[in-house]
Protein backbone atom coordinates (compact mmCIF):
# COMPACT_ATOMS: atom_id res chain seq x y z
CA UNK A 1 0.00 0.00 0.00
CA UNK A 2 1.38 3.35 -1.00
CA UNK A 3 1.31 6.28 1.39
CA UNK A 4 -0.59 9.29 0.21
CA UNK A 5 1.37 12.52 -0.23
CA UNK A 6 -0.83 14.03 2.48
CA UNK A 7 0.12 11.29 4.97
CA UNK A 8 3.81 11.66 4.07
CA UNK A 9 3.54 15.39 4.62
CA UNK A 10 1.97 14.93 8.05
CA UNK A 11 4.58 12.34 8.91
CA UNK A 12 7.42 14.60 7.79
CA UNK A 13 5.96 17.52 9.67
CA UNK A 14 5.60 15.40 12.78
CA UNK A 15 9.16 14.22 12.53
CA UNK A 16 10.40 17.75 12.03
CA UNK A 17 8.40 18.95 15.01
CA UNK A 18 9.68 16.09 17.14
CA UNK A 19 13.22 16.86 16.06
CA UNK A 20 12.83 20.48 17.00
CA UNK A 21 11.39 19.48 20.37
CA UNK A 22 14.29 17.12 20.94
CA UNK A 23 16.80 19.84 20.12
CA UNK A 24 14.95 22.29 22.35
CA UNK A 25 14.84 19.77 25.18
CA UNK A 26 18.55 19.11 24.75
CA UNK A 27 19.37 22.76 24.69
CA UNK A 28 16.79 23.71 27.30
CA UNK A 29 17.43 27.32 26.43
CA UNK A 30 15.87 30.29 24.76
CA UNK A 31 17.70 32.64 22.38
CA UNK A 32 17.76 35.48 24.91
CA UNK A 33 19.51 33.21 27.42
CA UNK A 34 22.06 32.23 24.81
CA UNK A 35 22.80 35.84 23.83
CA UNK A 36 23.16 36.91 27.46
CA UNK A 37 25.08 33.74 28.12
CA UNK A 38 27.57 34.53 25.39
CA UNK A 39 28.28 37.90 26.98
CA UNK A 40 28.67 36.27 30.39
CA UNK A 41 30.87 33.58 28.85
CA UNK A 42 33.20 36.07 27.18
CA UNK A 43 33.41 38.08 30.38
CA UNK A 44 33.89 35.23 32.82
CA UNK A 45 35.54 32.51 30.75
CA UNK A 46 37.06 34.41 27.82
CA UNK A 47 40.29 35.16 29.65
CA UNK A 48 41.33 31.54 29.39
CA UNK A 49 38.89 29.72 27.09
CA UNK A 50 37.64 29.88 23.53
CA UNK A 51 34.94 27.86 21.85
CA UNK A 52 37.04 26.38 19.07
CA UNK A 53 40.66 26.46 20.21
CA UNK A 54 42.55 25.26 23.27
CA UNK A 55 44.21 28.12 25.08
CA UNK A 56 44.99 28.28 28.79
CA UNK A 57 41.94 26.10 29.17
CA UNK A 58 40.48 23.57 26.71
CA UNK A 59 38.03 24.42 23.93
CA UNK A 60 34.34 24.45 24.77
CA UNK A 61 32.75 23.33 21.52
CA UNK A 62 30.53 20.34 22.44
CA UNK A 63 31.50 20.49 26.08
CA UNK A 64 27.96 19.55 27.17
CA UNK A 65 27.75 15.81 26.76
CA UNK A 66 31.51 15.44 26.53
CA UNK A 67 33.53 13.18 28.77
CA UNK A 68 35.47 15.10 31.42
CA UNK A 69 39.12 15.75 30.48
CA UNK A 70 38.65 14.33 26.98
CA UNK A 71 39.86 17.01 24.55
CA UNK A 72 42.68 15.41 22.59
CA UNK A 73 45.98 17.21 23.00
CA UNK A 74 45.02 19.35 25.98
CA UNK A 75 47.17 18.85 29.07
CA UNK A 76 44.65 18.29 31.86
CA UNK A 77 45.51 18.21 35.55
CA UNK A 78 45.50 14.83 37.23
CA UNK A 79 42.68 16.14 39.44
CA UNK A 80 40.39 16.58 36.45
CA UNK A 81 41.44 13.30 34.87
CA UNK A 82 40.39 11.55 38.07
CA UNK A 83 37.01 13.28 38.16
CA UNK A 84 35.56 11.18 35.36
CA UNK A 85 32.01 11.19 34.01
CA UNK A 86 30.29 13.45 31.53
CA UNK A 87 29.81 17.21 31.57
CA UNK A 88 26.08 17.66 32.08
CA UNK A 89 24.41 21.01 32.81
CA UNK A 90 24.13 20.03 36.48
CA UNK A 91 27.77 19.09 36.71
CA UNK A 92 28.82 22.27 34.94
CA UNK A 93 26.76 24.21 37.47
CA UNK A 94 28.60 22.44 40.26
CA UNK A 95 31.93 23.09 38.54
CA UNK A 96 31.31 26.79 38.05
CA UNK A 97 30.16 27.09 41.67
CA UNK A 98 33.62 26.10 42.85
CA UNK A 99 36.15 24.35 40.70
CA UNK A 100 38.49 23.51 43.55
CA UNK A 101 35.65 22.12 45.64
CA UNK A 102 34.69 19.76 42.85
CA UNK A 103 38.22 18.83 41.74
CA UNK A 104 40.83 20.00 44.25
CA UNK A 105 44.14 20.58 42.53
CA UNK A 106 42.68 21.28 39.09
CA UNK A 107 44.17 24.15 37.08
CA UNK A 108 41.03 26.27 37.12
CA UNK A 109 40.19 28.58 39.99
CA UNK A 110 36.69 29.98 39.90
CA UNK A 111 33.80 30.37 42.31
CA UNK A 112 30.84 31.87 40.53
CA UNK A 113 28.29 32.63 43.24
CA UNK A 114 25.60 34.06 40.98
CA UNK A 115 23.31 31.16 40.03
CA UNK A 116 21.69 33.15 37.23
CA UNK A 117 25.04 33.91 35.67
CA UNK A 118 26.02 30.25 35.91
CA UNK A 119 22.82 29.24 34.15
CA UNK A 120 23.37 31.78 31.38
CA UNK A 121 26.89 30.53 30.77
CA UNK A 122 25.65 26.94 30.71
CA UNK A 123 22.89 27.95 28.29
CA UNK A 124 25.54 29.35 25.98
CA UNK A 125 27.70 26.24 26.35
CA UNK A 126 24.68 24.13 25.44
CA UNK A 127 24.12 26.28 22.37
CA UNK A 128 27.64 25.48 21.12
CA UNK A 129 27.15 21.81 21.93
CA UNK A 130 24.26 21.07 19.62
CA UNK A 131 24.64 17.77 17.79
CA UNK A 132 24.67 19.42 14.36
CA UNK A 133 27.33 21.97 15.22
CA UNK A 134 30.45 19.87 14.87
CA UNK A 135 31.20 16.19 14.78
CA UNK A 136 34.92 16.63 14.27
CA UNK A 137 35.81 17.54 17.85
CA UNK A 138 33.99 14.58 19.41
CA UNK A 139 35.68 11.45 20.53
CA UNK A 140 34.50 8.09 19.27
CA UNK A 141 32.73 7.33 22.54
CA UNK A 142 30.93 10.65 22.35
CA UNK A 143 29.82 9.97 18.80
CA UNK A 144 28.31 6.69 19.99
CA UNK A 145 26.48 8.52 22.73
CA UNK A 146 25.09 11.00 20.28
CA UNK A 147 23.81 8.19 18.10
CA UNK A 148 22.01 6.66 21.07
CA UNK A 149 20.26 9.92 21.82
CA UNK A 150 16.71 9.87 20.47
Amino acid at each position, binding site marked *: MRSSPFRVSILSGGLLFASLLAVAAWAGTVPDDVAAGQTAY*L*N*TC*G*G*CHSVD*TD*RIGPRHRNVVGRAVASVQGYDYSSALKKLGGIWTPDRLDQWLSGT*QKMAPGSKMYL*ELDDATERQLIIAYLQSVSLPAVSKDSRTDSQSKRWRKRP
Partner: protein
Amino acid sequence: MNEPKGDRRTFLARAGVATLGVATASLFAGRAMSATVVRPNDVGVIQTALALEHEGIAAYRIAGKSGLLSPGTLKLALVFMGHHQTHRDSLAKLVAAAGGKPVEPRTDAQYIAELKLNSLKSEADVVALATMLERGAASAYIGQITALKEPGLAKLFASISADEAIHWTTLNNAAGTPIPTAAYVFG
Protein backbone atom coordinates in the same frame (compact mmCIF):
# COMPACT_ATOMS: atom_id res chain seq x y z
CA MET B 1 66.81 79.21 25.45
CA ASN B 2 63.65 80.06 23.63
CA GLU B 3 61.51 77.34 25.08
CA PRO B 4 58.28 78.84 26.38
CA LYS B 5 57.93 78.67 30.14
CA GLY B 6 54.50 77.11 29.97
CA ASP B 7 55.68 74.25 27.82
CA ARG B 8 58.68 73.65 30.00
CA ARG B 9 56.54 73.57 33.12
CA THR B 10 54.24 71.11 31.44
CA PHE B 11 57.21 69.02 30.40
CA LEU B 12 58.64 69.04 33.91
CA ALA B 13 55.30 68.27 35.44
CA ARG B 14 54.93 65.32 33.10
CA ALA B 15 58.47 64.20 33.84
CA GLY B 16 57.74 64.46 37.55
CA VAL B 17 54.65 62.35 37.18
CA ALA B 18 56.62 59.84 35.14
CA THR B 19 59.38 59.66 37.76
CA LEU B 20 56.84 59.27 40.55
CA GLY B 21 55.15 56.56 38.53
CA VAL B 22 58.35 54.59 38.12
CA ALA B 23 59.17 54.92 41.82
CA THR B 24 55.70 53.81 42.84
CA ALA B 25 55.83 50.89 40.48
CA SER B 26 59.19 49.81 41.88
CA LEU B 27 57.98 50.29 45.42
CA PHE B 28 54.86 48.28 44.75
CA ALA B 29 56.75 45.53 43.00
CA GLY B 30 59.21 45.40 45.89
CA ARG B 31 56.42 45.38 48.45
CA ALA B 32 54.61 42.63 46.61
CA MET B 33 57.78 40.56 46.48
CA SER B 34 58.94 41.06 50.05
CA ALA B 35 55.70 41.06 52.00
CA THR B 36 53.99 38.24 50.18
CA VAL B 37 54.47 34.70 51.37
CA VAL B 38 53.28 32.34 48.69
CA ARG B 39 51.48 29.35 50.09
CA PRO B 40 51.58 26.11 48.11
CA ASN B 41 47.90 26.36 47.27
CA ASP B 42 48.45 29.77 45.72
CA VAL B 43 51.17 28.68 43.32
CA GLY B 44 48.66 27.11 40.93
CA VAL B 45 46.59 30.29 40.84
CA ILE B 46 49.68 32.35 40.08
CA GLN B 47 50.72 29.96 37.33
CA THR B 48 47.34 30.36 35.63
CA ALA B 49 47.70 34.13 35.86
CA LEU B 50 51.22 33.89 34.47
CA ALA B 51 49.93 31.91 31.49
CA LEU B 52 47.40 34.71 30.88
CA GLU B 53 50.18 37.30 30.88
CA HIS B 54 52.29 35.25 28.46
CA GLU B 55 49.32 35.10 26.11
CA GLY B 56 48.67 38.84 26.37
CA ILE B 57 52.32 39.68 25.68
CA ALA B 58 52.38 37.37 22.66
CA ALA B 59 49.14 38.84 21.28
CA TYR B 60 50.45 42.42 21.45
CA ARG B 61 53.91 41.45 20.19
CA ILE B 62 52.66 39.47 17.21
CA ALA B 63 49.90 41.95 16.36
CA GLY B 64 52.42 44.78 16.75
CA LYS B 65 54.61 43.25 14.05
CA SER B 66 51.68 42.61 11.72
CA GLY B 67 51.78 46.03 10.09
CA LEU B 68 48.05 46.41 10.75
CA LEU B 69 48.42 49.02 13.50
CA SER B 70 48.74 52.75 12.95
CA PRO B 71 51.63 54.44 14.80
CA GLY B 72 49.41 55.76 17.59
CA THR B 73 47.75 52.42 18.21
CA LEU B 74 51.08 50.61 18.01
CA LYS B 75 52.52 52.94 20.66
CA LEU B 76 49.59 52.19 22.94
CA ALA B 77 49.87 48.46 22.29
CA LEU B 78 53.51 48.56 23.31
CA VAL B 79 52.62 50.37 26.53
CA PHE B 80 50.04 47.71 27.33
CA MET B 81 52.52 44.98 26.45
CA GLY B 82 54.98 46.59 28.87
CA HIS B 83 52.37 46.38 31.63
CA HIS B 84 51.85 42.69 30.89
CA GLN B 85 55.61 42.11 30.96
CA THR B 86 55.79 43.73 34.38
CA HIS B 87 52.92 41.56 35.60
CA ARG B 88 54.67 38.51 34.15
CA ASP B 89 57.92 39.33 35.95
CA SER B 90 56.15 39.86 39.30
CA LEU B 91 54.21 36.60 39.01
CA ALA B 92 57.20 34.57 37.82
CA LYS B 93 59.28 35.81 40.75
CA LEU B 94 56.56 34.78 43.18
CA VAL B 95 56.40 31.28 41.72
CA ALA B 96 60.19 30.97 41.82
CA ALA B 97 60.31 32.29 45.39
CA ALA B 98 57.87 29.56 46.36
CA GLY B 99 60.22 26.97 44.86
CA GLY B 100 58.13 26.45 41.75
CA LYS B 101 59.07 26.59 38.08
CA PRO B 102 57.26 29.47 36.41
CA VAL B 103 55.13 28.32 33.50
CA GLU B 104 56.83 29.04 30.17
CA PRO B 105 55.24 30.87 27.26
CA ARG B 106 54.03 28.79 24.33
CA THR B 107 55.49 29.21 20.87
CA ASP B 108 54.36 32.01 18.60
CA ALA B 109 52.90 29.39 16.26
CA GLN B 110 50.71 28.10 19.09
CA TYR B 111 49.52 31.58 20.02
CA ILE B 112 48.81 32.38 16.38
CA ALA B 113 46.69 29.24 16.08
CA GLU B 114 44.96 29.52 19.46
CA LEU B 115 44.04 33.18 19.05
CA LYS B 116 43.47 32.89 15.29
CA LEU B 117 45.87 35.77 14.75
CA ASN B 118 46.19 34.96 11.06
CA SER B 119 42.55 35.92 10.61
CA LEU B 120 43.19 39.51 11.68
CA LYS B 121 42.87 41.75 8.64
CA SER B 122 42.65 45.27 10.01
CA GLU B 123 43.45 47.44 12.99
CA ALA B 124 39.82 47.13 14.04
CA ASP B 125 40.22 43.33 14.15
CA VAL B 126 43.28 43.66 16.38
CA VAL B 127 41.54 46.11 18.69
CA ALA B 128 38.51 43.82 18.93
CA LEU B 129 40.66 40.83 19.87
CA ALA B 130 42.69 42.82 22.39
CA THR B 131 39.48 44.19 23.91
CA MET B 132 38.13 40.67 24.35
CA LEU B 133 41.37 39.40 25.87
CA GLU B 134 41.71 42.33 28.26
CA ARG B 135 38.14 42.00 29.43
CA GLY B 136 38.61 38.30 30.03
CA ALA B 137 41.87 38.90 31.85
CA ALA B 138 40.41 41.58 34.12
CA SER B 139 37.58 39.23 35.03
CA ALA B 140 39.88 36.23 35.43
CA TYR B 141 42.00 38.03 38.00
CA ILE B 142 38.91 39.00 39.97
CA GLY B 143 37.63 35.44 39.75
CA GLN B 144 40.89 34.07 41.07
CA ILE B 145 41.13 36.40 44.06
CA THR B 146 38.73 34.30 46.12
CA ALA B 147 40.96 31.27 45.57
CA LEU B 148 44.01 32.98 47.07
CA LYS B 149 44.99 32.25 50.65
CA GLU B 150 47.38 35.18 51.06
CA PRO B 151 45.91 38.72 51.34
CA GLY B 152 49.06 40.28 49.85
CA LEU B 153 48.56 38.23 46.73
CA ALA B 154 44.91 39.21 46.57
CA LYS B 155 46.02 42.84 46.58
CA LEU B 156 48.47 42.17 43.76
CA PHE B 157 45.79 40.41 41.72
CA ALA B 158 43.36 43.28 42.29
CA SER B 159 46.00 45.74 41.13
CA ILE B 160 46.75 43.74 37.99
CA SER B 161 43.03 43.43 37.28
CA ALA B 162 42.74 47.22 37.48
CA ASP B 163 45.54 47.53 34.90
CA GLU B 164 43.69 45.15 32.58
CA ALA B 165 40.51 47.16 33.13
CA ILE B 166 42.34 50.31 32.03
CA HIS B 167 43.48 48.51 28.89
CA TRP B 168 39.96 47.29 28.19
CA THR B 169 38.43 50.73 28.73
CA THR B 170 40.95 52.42 26.45
CA LEU B 171 40.47 49.85 23.70
CA ASN B 172 36.71 49.82 24.11
CA ASN B 173 36.59 53.59 23.72
CA ALA B 174 38.92 53.43 20.72
CA ALA B 175 36.51 51.01 19.09
CA GLY B 176 33.64 53.38 19.83
CA THR B 177 31.77 50.78 21.83
CA PRO B 178 29.53 52.20 24.56
CA ILE B 179 30.42 51.39 28.15
CA PRO B 180 27.99 48.79 29.55
CA THR B 181 25.15 50.45 31.38
CA ALA B 182 24.99 47.75 34.05
CA ALA B 183 27.40 47.90 36.96
CA TYR B 184 29.94 45.18 37.78
CA VAL B 185 31.42 45.12 34.31
CA PHE B 186 34.11 42.64 35.30
CA GLY B 187 34.15 39.52 37.38
